[in-house]
């Protein structure tokens, strides 16, 4: 019994419920046989291994093993001490009702030919196994479209006590090799009556591809049964096969719609060998399912094209295939918006969101459902919008303002939805207004009509009207109008301008603004004419003869005219009379009135503009001006595009200011245009399109007092000055040997093109035809220029010229705008014959005079001379030779030849005071850049401080030998006169050399004042000419020896003979008229050199 309980425990608590029942039976039989044999001690050959099971806890089914020797016998089975009758049977099993919990003795009497044998078994419930009956009847169906198996069976629960737990085990097998596809376990509870249970399973292989087999068994765990509980036998295999394959082949699944990312198996059922398999563009290796079927497994399927993804199996003779559609379930509709355009129907629009990848019958369907009314609208594909914006139209329900919409999207893979709750009166986006019409009220107001379809009776509309006019720009007006059922609206539009072409357009919204409608088409409309808003701008001018006055006016601007001006009415009146001129058409903007300026009576002139609507207010002006004697003509230059005027504020000016102008060259009356400025203004910029640069205008500034104008200023002006366009016309009035008088004429105003600022006069010495003066190269030292800033000057005398010399002349005028062209001329100065005569006569006279005086002296001192130079008995002790320098023959070279003593240098300082060279009057001053330096040097040394260093006895000999040697040896007599003060101290030797070469002229024996200006402008050519006259034979010696010889040489090497007397004294002839300006005439020595100057440099 201990072993029995052990085995029972095993069967009850063991985890392996699939343990074979035969195993238990075998074990229990061994135990049972052991017990019986031990109890009764019977021998072999009788029934043994009694085994009892129950299928339903109500009947025990017992069976035993019997020896062959008792075959074909009869058994009598009796339950000892029981009311159950004995059973006689020829089989080796019997059924008895389930016995009570106690032990029961079973006696089996074997009756056969050889004799009877009785054997007894002790039977207890614990020795009985509960083995549920095999499930024979269950229903297996399949959904091929989803490859799903459906299993349905009855648990036969009415047989068993309720609340028993049942464990069901189902096995699905497929393919040729009967592979286990799945093993499923279900737990149920018995409820005391029959219950139907369901189980389904989806195969990863289409059911059509290969048969699927199903079997089931179960285990009842009845707690109150103490016997063994065992699994039922497996049910018989049931299989599901696909429908008969058409045309002997087929590929599965067909036209499947799956989500992107799915894993799928496709199979091909075909009688011939499959060579290849292809999914889309990719080839796949296939697996064999059974004899006729192969498959490919696709993982993570991507989205398909519109016509699906093809799965193709190829055989030797054909190709077979199917199509799969992979996509997405519908996205949640985005941006769901419901609004109305006419309060009649609601338009709900949305964006589909992520594309599903499905088209046509697999595409997304939408249903718009309104919860309050319970109505819905289905999305028709015909309404599909191309750019993924979808919309549905829902007819509004009378009286309902709040709508709760649910939009549901669905496709073969799923569904989604979006909701929106709207108050439709706040979601009004009206249609585009149309049929815009305008109708006159007056010149500044109209009615504007338009059509707006819809039923807006319950709301107010906010409409915006855009008003465009050419001259007044754009204006927007918002108005609120009561909504109508009739769709015809109109508004009153005022504050318009008369006779103006307007463009109107309208858009509307609800008062609870949601969206504007589109703008309506534009409506162009011309408002009617109104009377001109102001009179024309007028001015009057008297004719020169004072016999009539011309009244001018300007056309009114469009916004002042308020219509088409037809004519003007001009009238004038004085205290005595009023007169009217005949009507003047619009094309004319002036009128002449016969009045006498000398008549004392002042008239008021009035001009009125008229259009079809009426007359403008009159513009008035008095005929007479307030006289103003204090008028000066001023000049003004503009700022390019106009001219800026300034005037002082005058409180007396009560009306306005007027600036009128005209071209100064035009004839009277002077009026090109005028402008008026307010009375409180103090300046104005006058701009005028026709202002031309270089044209002179006359401007007149008038002020207005008590409606009467007074001329305040008269101004000549240019908007921009230009250089003169012509050269001044000049002539040579007079020429002399050293001067030229030129005279020029005024340039006409038209050619002047600016205010004249002065003239530039150029002249240069040169041969005819060789002038470079036209180039006017700056810095040319030989071109002299004279700036004449006195514009009233019309003549110019050029002095200090050389006689019989050609000069190029050029005259230019200049204005603020620049220098104009020049006129050139070539002039030759006259020959200086008087000076030549004097230059010859005076030296001759002087020479005679000196000879006479010398003779007289020699005669009177003959004794002394004899004693000194030719004594009868020479006495060296009494020699006076050393005193010769004090004699009147001082400077004579012949005397010095007797000097025997070595040189003892001595210095003699000569201090000479003289006045500065007189300054030339500015107008006649000849400016040359070269002259500046020496003049300054002269100014720096007002007192001539001359140091004379000499060595009288021996210098003659040295110089005679020296020839071209440097004169700077230690024994040299250095004579520095006034001229040396001007020479550059850095080049004494060079200057001396130059002097030797070209400066061999006559050297005055007196100290001469020199005008540096003249010295410096000597040219090399002049030098050669001046070297021509040589009164002494030994020129070189004379020049070098003479202590009087001027040694100043200009630093300019070209002017090598600067120190010559020619240059010194020529200055005196150039300025002869004023003796007091002559340089140092008091010295007396200068006049000699003048006579030798036949071609003086200026």
């Amino acid at each position, binding site marked *: 019994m201990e072993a029995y309980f052990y085995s029972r425990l095993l069967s009850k608590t063991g985890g392996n419920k699939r343990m074979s029942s035969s195993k238990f039976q075998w074990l229990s039989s061994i135990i049972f046989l052991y017990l019986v044999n031990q109890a009764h001690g019977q021998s072999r050959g009788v029934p043994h291994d009694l085994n009892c099971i129950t299928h339903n806890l109500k009947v025990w089914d017992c069976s035993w093993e019997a020896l062959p020797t008792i075959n074909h016998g009869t058994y009598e089975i009796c339950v000892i001490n029981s009311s159950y009758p004995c059973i006689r049977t020829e089989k080796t099993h019997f059924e008895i009702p389930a016995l009570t919990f106690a032990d029961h003795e079973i006696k089996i009497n074997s009756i056969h030919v050889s004799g009877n044998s009785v054997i007894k078994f002790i039977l207890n419930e614990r020795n009985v196994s509960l083995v549920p009956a095999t499930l024979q009847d269950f229903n297996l169906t399949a959904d091929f479209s989803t490859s799903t198996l459906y299993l349905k069976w009855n648990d036969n629960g009415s047989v068993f006590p309720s609340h028993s737990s049942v464990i069901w085990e189902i096995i699905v097998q497929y393919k040729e090799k009967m592979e286990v596809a799945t093993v499923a376990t279900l737990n149920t509870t018995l409820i005391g009556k029959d219950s139907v249970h369901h189980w389904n399973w989806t195969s990863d292989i289409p059911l059509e591809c290969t048969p699927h087999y199903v079997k089931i068994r179960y285990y009842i765990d009845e707690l109150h049964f103490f016997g063994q509980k065992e699994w039922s036998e497996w049910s018989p295999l049931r299989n599901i096969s696909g429908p008969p394959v058409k045309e002997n082949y087929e590929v599965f699944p067909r036209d499947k719609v799956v989500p992107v990312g799915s894993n799928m198996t496709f199979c091909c059922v075909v009688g011939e060998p499959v060579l290849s398999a292809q999914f889309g563009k990719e080839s796949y290796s296939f697996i064999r399912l059974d004899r006729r079927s192969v498959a490919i497994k696709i993982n993570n399927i991507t989205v398909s094209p519109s016509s699906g*993804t093809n799965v193709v199996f190829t055989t030797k003779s054909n190709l077979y295939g199917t199509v799969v559609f992979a996509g997405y379930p519908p996205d949640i509709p985005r941006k769901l918006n419901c609004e109305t355009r006419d309060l009649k129907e609601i338009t709900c629009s949305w964006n589909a969101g992520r594309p599903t990848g499905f*088209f046509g019958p697999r595409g997304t369907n939408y249903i718009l459902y309104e919860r309050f009314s319970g109505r819905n609208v289905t999305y028709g594909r015909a309404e599909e919008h191309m750019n993924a914006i979808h919309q549905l139209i829902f007819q509004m329900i009378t009286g309902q303002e709040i709508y709760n919409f649910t939009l549901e999207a669905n496709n073969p893979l799923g569904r989604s939805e979006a909701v929106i709750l709207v108050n439709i009166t706040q979601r009004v986006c009206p249609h585009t207004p149309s049929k815009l019409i305008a109708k006159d009220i007056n010149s500044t107001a109209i009615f504007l009509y338009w059509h707006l379809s819809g039923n807006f009776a319950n709301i107010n509309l906010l409409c915006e009207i855009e008003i465009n006019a050419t001259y007044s720009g754009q204006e927007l007006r918002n108005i609120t109008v009561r909504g109508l059922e009739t769709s015809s609206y109109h508004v009153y539009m005022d504050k318009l301008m008369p006779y103006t072409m307007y463009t109107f357009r309208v858009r509307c919204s609800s008062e609870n603004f949601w969206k504007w409608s589109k703008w309506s088409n534009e409506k162009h409309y011309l408002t009617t004419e109104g009377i001109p808003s102001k009179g024309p701008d007028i001015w009057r001018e008297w004719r020169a003869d004072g016999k009539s006055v011309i009244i001018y006016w300007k056309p009114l601007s469009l916004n002042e005219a308020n219509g088409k001006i037809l004519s003007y009415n001009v009238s004038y009146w004085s205290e005595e009379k009023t007169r009217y001129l005949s009507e003047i058409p619009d094309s004319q903007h002036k009128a002449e009135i016969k009045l006498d300026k000398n008549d004392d009576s002042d008239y008021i002139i009035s001009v009125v503009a008229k259009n079809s609507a009426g007359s403008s207010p009159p513009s008035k002006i008095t005929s007479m001006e307030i006289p103003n004697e204090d008028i000066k003509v001023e000049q003004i230059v503009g700022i390019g595009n106009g001219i800026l005027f300034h005037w002082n504020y005058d409180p007396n000016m009560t009306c306005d200011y007027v600036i009128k102008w005209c071209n100064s060259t035009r004839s009277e009356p002077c009026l090109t245009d005028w402008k008026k400025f307010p009375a409180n203004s103090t300046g104005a910029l006058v701009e005028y399109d026709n202002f031309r640069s270089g044209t002179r205008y006359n401007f007149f500034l008038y002020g207005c007092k008590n409606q009467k104008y007074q001329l305040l200023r008269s101004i000549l002006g240019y908007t921009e000055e230009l250089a003169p366009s012509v050269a001044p016309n000049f002539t040579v009035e007079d020429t002399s040997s050293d001067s030229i008088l030129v005279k020029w004429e005024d340039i006409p105003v038209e050619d002047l093109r600016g205010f004249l600022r002065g003239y530039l006069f150029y002249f240069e010495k040169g041969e005819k035809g060789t002038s470079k003066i036209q180039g006017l190269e700056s810095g040319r030292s030989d071109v002299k220029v004279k700036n004449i800033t006195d514009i009233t000057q019309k003549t110019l005398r050029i002095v200090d010229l050389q006689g019989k010399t050609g000069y190029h002349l050029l005259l230019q005028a200049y204005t603020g705008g620049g220098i104009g062209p020049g006129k050139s001329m070539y002039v030759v100065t006259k020959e200086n014959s008087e000076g030549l005569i004097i230059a010859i006569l005076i030296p001759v006279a002087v020479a005679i005079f000196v000879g006479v005086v010398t003779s007289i002296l020699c005669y009177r001192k003959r004794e002394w001379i004899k004693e000194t130079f030719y004594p009868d008995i020479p006495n060296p002790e009494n020699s006076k030779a050393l005193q010769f320098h004090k004699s009147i023959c001082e400077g004579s070279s012949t005397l010095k030849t007797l000097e025997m003593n070595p040189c003892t240098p001595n210095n003699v300082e000569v201090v000479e005071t003289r006045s500065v060279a007189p300054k030339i009057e500015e107008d006649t001053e000849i400016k040359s850049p070269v002259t500046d330096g020496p003049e300054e040097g002269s100014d720096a040394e007002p007192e001539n401080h001359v140091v004379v260093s000499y060595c009288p006895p021996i210098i003659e000999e040295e110089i005679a030998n020296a020839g071209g040697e440097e004169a700077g040896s230690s024994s040299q007599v250095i004579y520095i006169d006034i001229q040396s003060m001007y020479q550059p101290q850095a080049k004494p030797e060079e200057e001396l050399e130059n002097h030797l070469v070209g400066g061999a002229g006559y050297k005055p024996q007196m100290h001469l004042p020199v005008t540096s200006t003249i010295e410096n402008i000597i040219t090399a050519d002049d030098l050669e000419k001046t070297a021509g006259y040589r009164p002494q034979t030994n020129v070189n010696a004379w020049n070098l020896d003479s202590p009087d010889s001027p040694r100043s040489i200009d630093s300019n090497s070209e002017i090598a003979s600067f120190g010559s007397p020619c240059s010194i004294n020529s200055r005196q002839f150039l300025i002869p008229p004023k003796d007091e300006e002559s340089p140092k005439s008091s010295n007396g020595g200068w006049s000699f050199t003048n006579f030798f100057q036949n071609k003086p440099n200026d």
Partner: protein
Amino acid sequence: LFFVPCLLSLLLEPFTLGVPLSLADPINQAYNLALYMQKNTSVLLQTYLQYQGSPFSDTGFSAPELQLSSLPPAAVPFMLWRGLGDGERLIQTRGAFSALAQHLQLVNDDQADLNPGSSVLLSQLAAARLWAQGLMGNMASVMTVLGVSIPPEVDALGPAPFGASAFERKCRGYVVTREYGHWTDRAVRDMALLKAKYVA
């Protein structure tokens, strides 16, 4: 769509003029239309394949093994074709275009489901169907002049097409557009033969 007016003239003339008096006109019209159709058949086939996905859209795709039992094949032994009488030849070709016109309508419907966005393909299929019907009319005119009785049109499709899978429909469309080309080629030769025989 520049060809539409030209096409209309080709299609309408046989009907508007009634029975032509001479043989040359209907033969020329049928020949010209067949010639015109011939220029567009390859475009139709390529356009069709392009929309069906791989392997149909693969370069060089060809599946001669695919056939439709409801559509007579154009292929015929040359001598057999040459030996046919004019009337029999015309009857065969006209019958084929009758079937083609029905199949083209079917293919058009199929593609409206599979490729609803392919307006180019759908319009080409519709045009091909129109041309097929036009050619039938032209050939009927020739047959009338030749005295050949025109057999009544038969339903080539039957109820079978409705259960076809997407793949079957794609294949069906392929066969139809392919055979449309073949039959057009054959019609051109048919007409050329008649032209050589009856039109100087």
